[in-house]
């Protein structure tokens, strides 16, 4: 099967660029953040950043600039993509009506030309006459900014300087003038070139400066009155404007490399600079007024403000607040303070924006043993390195628990025991034939009695009503109790000694049913309940609800009354809506089937009323409810669990959510006006009530068959990310179930000092509970470099030089504490790790593959495979094996170890003498970087020769090459989808699928892997893992027949899913995709087919064999008329093999199910 569905489960989070300006309106101050191929538009408000819109671009954003031309009050946004699509965007309308209008667009690629190694640079003339693009060596492309013409003719001008480091337009020039840093054999030089727009050529050079600093890399054009530019180098900063120049070489900038800047003052007298170590600097130009009134730069001052996330870009917003965009760590909103804090930092972090990028490696584990995977990623780099635990669904954090079996219902009450009437202090528990009361005393709970409460009957409802009363409904009566006296105020008993069995209540209304009889009561004067109406229904009542759902009730539920109630009936299995107070039925919805409704609930989600009906088999119907007529529509069904489900509303962050209590507890909430069903990390919940007590604020009380738990709930959102900061770069991760640990390979930066190596900063490996190290003295091999001192200070390395030090960290799976750090030898890079059992040995081992890296060698010639055992809090080196190269990948293989070492794939067996012994090898690779196995098959991902399939012949004890892909793909990750289908990711951000054709007639054909799928992902995949983020059972209940699930993690911090589709369904989705591509008018007018076409430097081929899940799933966000436009005339197979016209509802159902696989 070669039909794949690829979709983003977690969008990319690395910030690649950010700009500030007036984009959405001339009065709005906006922050626009680019995250690979998405833009996020924010508004700066008194409350902080308010997210406005996320805009997808069909291309990786290479450059993003805001500019204001002529008399415009609003900024225009210029974007250039990696595949050379240029566009100028403007914004019109406000709020939900906001539209992004593509004013200008076109592809600016040239047919010939060598793409510059220093990347794409785009610059805009400060007077907005032209845009300059440095795309290819030796050429500068000019786009004249002419507002009135319908066609803009861009042209190239030849630029003599081939190796350009940076280029910028100078301020205040009569003709557009660029300043460049270029490099030649002698060093780096700065030069200005004036552009003659008429001749389409460079005119003159007004000034130049040869031999600036050899590492000068960045130019900051300075506005008038100063003019000129700042030249930023590794060690020095120079201001130059042709007439005069000032250079400073402050020691504080030498430690790292300045990579980004942000202008603070419009007149350019202050700039913020950020470096690779995360230092934030302020650069100030000190001015000097001359006698003739002109001002010049007298001096440059630079000061360290503090430390932030390693910045990729930064921009000043307003009132001392700065946005720091990061690729390696969380982006930040920071405030600059005039007075420093105790750490001498002028920077306070106001807000952080979670970033998983770059995801270097990851593993899927089921830590809670709930049948649901959690993803643990190696994220970030350098000081921002961290482990991230990513979990789908909502977590309950247990605060207290008591063993109490047989609970039939729970309610929290405000009884004023502590004198504070605004918090809950009592929990009422209902059992068969009795009711018990627990009083909350701080964190303690003690059993108590409330005189007015009936305790020898089962309670169906108990809660505060009116001003200071409590209502209790039991089998025999409805009674009111005074909060003040705790005594009974009044009661109502059903006529003829009937026994109540189903009830519902809100703050002033009561519904109770005894068999087919339904009674409606209202509270009067806070002291009594009065029967208002009574009817006898067709069948017995199964469930009831009278939650007020008129719009507005969400803000103040206590003062609104319900004008309708919902009833679920036995026998005819229907949901009915009755008017209040008359109980007159006006809507009936047959549910079908034979399972009775067990719980019914009306809820207002994001202002939209819904009716939810949960059945006895764990399935749930939900309807939207017309806010005025209260009629039901949009019937939908989902399966939540397998047991009868109880629906209970609760509030979290002032929004309504519903807790579905069942054997698979679920939280139902609304996001983007769609209902989301998010599972909870608990095995089973029978009943639930919200609790807000002094000791347990904003908590939930959850009853299982055996116990009551008080817990707090995660913020309501789909994916939950927990961060474990490491402070150094995590490289590889493996999970060992037996020892309940993770093995994590990290690298940190140490500085060579005369006394030896010193860590540049404290991090996970320096702060571990215990440490050990590999010494080349006792090792099988000698570290080739450090000959003078075997395990310590660098014999060769210069003092002050930075050196990478690799560690194996043993991390506890529960606390994520670093239990142990094992440091590898100097110059020894740990590259791979696997946890496995070997041979007949019962012990699980962490196996680590390393390389000894010598700068002079083109590739490593030596390395090790080291076996570690973690037991009783000690890490022991069990064995080591010298290998002739870098061990890039390790895979467990039938109790043996498979290793990729330079260009060879080798299999090692574990002998009785506890030694690794080479069994067989396979050559024929350039560099074998990635290995995956399935049964006896081995998939090898090569540096530049795509993928190869090997088979291990057990009898012969050797490898046989089965087939290979002959395309020259430079691989970044590989995975086996099934016995014949293989997935690859390569370094031009494409995915491809190859198939083995075992049935082919000739040997030659059988040895070819055929490329059957191609897709441009727009992001580089570092890792593929089989597994899923959703519950195992979720897939069973879905109507969509997807097969298998591979997760991937990317450089930009995205997590995606690749799953396989049956042919029929693939063709259906392919048709939906084509129609979606027609309905959605892409920003920048880049065709969807262009965006998803497989593109490398060598070739462009159309997308094939892949469905773009991101496009498909955006169907759910379309307006209903656009949905109709997509659905119109689409044929669907309704399961019988017959085709019929698909309805919008059919497609919604299918796509909603597709969204539930991630």
């Amino acid at each position: 099967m070669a039909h794949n569905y690829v979709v983003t489960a977690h969008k990319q989070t690395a910030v690649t660029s950010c700009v500030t300006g007036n984009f959405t309106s001339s009065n709005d101050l906006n922050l626009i953040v680019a995250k690979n191929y998405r833009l996020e538009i924010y508004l700066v408000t008194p409350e902080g950043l308010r997210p406005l819109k996320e805009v997808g671009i069909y291309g990786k954003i290479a450059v993003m600039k805001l500019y204001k031309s002529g008399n415009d009050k609003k900024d225009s946004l210029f974007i250039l993509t990696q595949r050379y699509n240029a566009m100028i965007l403007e914004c019109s309308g406000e709020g939900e009506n906001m539209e992004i209008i593509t004013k200008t667009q076109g592809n600016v690629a040239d047919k010939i030309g060598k793409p510059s190694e220093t990347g794409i640079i785009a610059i805009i003339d400060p007077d907005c006459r032209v845009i300059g693009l440095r795309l290819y060596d030796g050429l500068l492309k000019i786009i004249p900014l002419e507002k009135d013409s319908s066609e803009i003719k861009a042209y190239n001008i030849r630029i003599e300087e081939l190796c350009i480091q940076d280029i910028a337009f100078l301020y205040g020039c009569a003709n557009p003038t660029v300043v460049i840093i270029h490099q030649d054999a002698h060093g780096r030089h700065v030069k200005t070139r004036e552009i003659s727009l008429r001749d389409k050529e460079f005119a003159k050079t007004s000034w130049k400066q040869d031999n600036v600093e050899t590492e000068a890399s960045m130019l900051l054009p300075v506005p008038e009155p100063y003019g000129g530019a700042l030249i930023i180098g590794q060690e020095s900063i120079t201001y130059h404007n042709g007439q005069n120049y000032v250079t400073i070489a402050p020691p504080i900038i030498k430690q790292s490399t300045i990579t980004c800047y942000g202008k603070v003052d419009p007149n350019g007298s202050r700039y913020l600079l950020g470096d690779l170590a995360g230092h934030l600097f302020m650069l100030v130009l000190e001015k000097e007024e001359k006698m003739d009134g002109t001002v010049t730069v007298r001096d440059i001052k630079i000061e360290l403000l503090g430390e932030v996330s390693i910045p990729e870009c930064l921009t000043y917003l307003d009132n001392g607040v700065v946005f720091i965009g990061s690729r390696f760590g969380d982006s930040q909103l920071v405030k600059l303070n005039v007075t420093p804090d105790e750490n001498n930092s002028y920077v306070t972090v106001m807000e952080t924006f979670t970033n998983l990028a770059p995801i270097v490696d990851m593993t899927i584990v089921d830590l809670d043993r709930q049948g649901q995977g959690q993803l643990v990623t190696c994220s970030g780099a350098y000081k921002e390195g961290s482990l991230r635990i990513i979990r789908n669904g909502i977590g309950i954090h247990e605060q207290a628990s008591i063993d109490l079996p047989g609970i039939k219902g729970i309610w929290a009450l405000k009884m004023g025991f502590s004198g504070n009437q605004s918090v809950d202090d009592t929990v009422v528990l209902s059992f068969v034939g009795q009711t018990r009361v627990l009083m909350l005393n701080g964190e303690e709970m003690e059993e108590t009695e409330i005189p007015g409460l009936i305790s020898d009957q089962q309670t169906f409802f108990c809660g505060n009503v009116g001003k200071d009363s409590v209502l209790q409904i039991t089998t025999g009566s409805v009674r009111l109790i005074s909060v003040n006296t705790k005594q009974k105020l009044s009661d109502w008993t059903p006529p003829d000694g009937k026994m109540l069995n189903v009830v519902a209540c809100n703050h002033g209304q009561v519904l109770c049913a005894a068999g087919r009889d339904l009674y409606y009561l209202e509270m009067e004067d806070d002291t009594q309940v009065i029967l208002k109406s009574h009817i006898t229904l067709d069948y017995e009542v199964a469930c009831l609800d009278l939650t007020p759902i008129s719009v507005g009730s969400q803000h103040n539920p206590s003062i609104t009354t319900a004008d309708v109630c919902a009833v679920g009936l036995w026998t005819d299995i229907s949901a009915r809506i009755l008017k209040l107070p008359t109980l007159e039925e006006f809507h009936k919805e047959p549910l079908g089937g034979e399972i009775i409704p067990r719980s019914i609930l009306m809820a207002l989600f994001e202002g939209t009323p819904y009716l939810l009906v949960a059945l006895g088999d764990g399935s749930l119907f939900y309807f939207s409810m017309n806010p005025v007529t209260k009629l039901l529509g949009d019937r939908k069904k989902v399966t939540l669990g397998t047991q009868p489900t109880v629906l209970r509303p609760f509030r979290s962050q002032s929004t309504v959510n519903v807790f579905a209590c069942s054997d698979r507890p679920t939280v139902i909430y609304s996001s983007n006006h769609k209902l989301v069903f998010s599972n909870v990390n608990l095995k089973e919940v029978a009943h639930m009530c919200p609790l807000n007590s002094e000791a347990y604020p904003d908590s939930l009380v959850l009853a299982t068959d055996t116990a009551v738990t008080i817990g707090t709930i995660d913020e309501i959102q789909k994916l939950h990310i927990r961060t474990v900061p490491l402070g150094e770069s995590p490289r590889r991760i493996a999970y060992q179930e037996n020892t309940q640990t993770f093995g994590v390979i990290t690298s940190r930066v140490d500085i060579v000092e005369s006394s030896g190596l010193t860590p540049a900063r404290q991090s996970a490996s320096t702060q571990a509970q215990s440490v050990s190290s590999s010494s080349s003295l006792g090792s099988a091999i000698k570290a080739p470099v450090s000959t003078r001192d075997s395990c310590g200070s660098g014999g060769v390395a210069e003092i002050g030089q930075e050196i990478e030090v690799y560690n194996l960290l043993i991390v506890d799976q529960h606390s994520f504490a670093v239990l142990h750090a094992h440091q590898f030898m100097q110059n020894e890079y740990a590259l791979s790790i696997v946890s496995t059992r070997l041979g007949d040995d019962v012990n699980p081992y962490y196996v680590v593959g390393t390389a000894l890296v010598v700068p002079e060698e083109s590739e490593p010639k030596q390395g090790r495979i080291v076996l570690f055992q973690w037991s009783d809090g000690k890490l022991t080196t069990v064995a080591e094996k010298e290998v002739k190269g870098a061990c890039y990948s390790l895979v467990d293989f039938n109790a043996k170890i498979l290793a990729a070492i330079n260009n060879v794939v080798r299999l090692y067996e574990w002998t009785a003498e506890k030694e690794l012994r080479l069994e067989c090898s396979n050559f024929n690779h350039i560099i074998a970087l990635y290995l995956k196995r399935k049964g006896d098959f081995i998939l090898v991902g090569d540096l530049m020769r795509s993928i190869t399939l090997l088979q291990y012949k057990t009898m012969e004890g050797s490898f046989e090459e089965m087939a290979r892909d002959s395309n020259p793909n430079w691989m970044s990750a590989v995975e086996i989808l099934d016995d014949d289908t293989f997935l690859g990711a390569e370094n031009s951000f494409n995915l491809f699928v190859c198939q083995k054709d075992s049935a082919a007639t000739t040997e030659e054909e059988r040895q070819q892997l055929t490329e059957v799928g191609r897709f441009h992902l727009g992001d580089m995949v570092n890792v593929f893992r089989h597994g899923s983020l959703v519950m195992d059972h979720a897939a069973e209940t879905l109507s969509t027949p997807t097969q298998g699930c591979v997760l991937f993690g990317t450089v930009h911090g995205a997590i995606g899913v690749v799953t396989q589709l049956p042919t029929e369904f693939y063709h259906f989705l392919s048709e939906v995709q084509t129609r979606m591509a027609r309905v959605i008018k892409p920003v920048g007018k880049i065709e969807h087919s262009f965006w998803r076409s497989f593109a490398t430097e060598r070739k462009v081929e159309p997308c094939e064999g892949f469905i773009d899940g991101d496009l498909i799933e955006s169907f759910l966000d379309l307006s209903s008329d656009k949905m109709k436009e997509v659905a119109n005339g689409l044929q669907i197979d309704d399961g019988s093999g017959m085709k019929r016209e698909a309805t919008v509802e059919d497609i919604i159902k299918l796509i909603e199910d597709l969204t539930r696989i991630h």
Partner: protein
Amino acid sequence: MKMTATADFLKGLPCYNENNFTRFHSDASSKVSVKRPSVYLPTKEYPSEQIIVTEKTNILLRYLHQQWERKNKKRESANEMEEGASAKKRPRLDTSV
């Protein structure tokens, strides 16, 4: 002294709207932002007002053309000068001495 110097660096930072960020408060416990902007789905067609096209002329050809034109112009003006000069020139009558 150094501290005051830096503090001066940070005085008078630009202000576009003095209210911005004044009512900012994040949870003391978590500063992590979970707000996400809603996704913009463009379904309205706006005809593009301008299209960028790259000039097809080869750089070398353009250069040669320019040179040729320049030369031509020079020659023309030279010719013009010559012609004009010759037209205005009057034969010397007093050739005989």
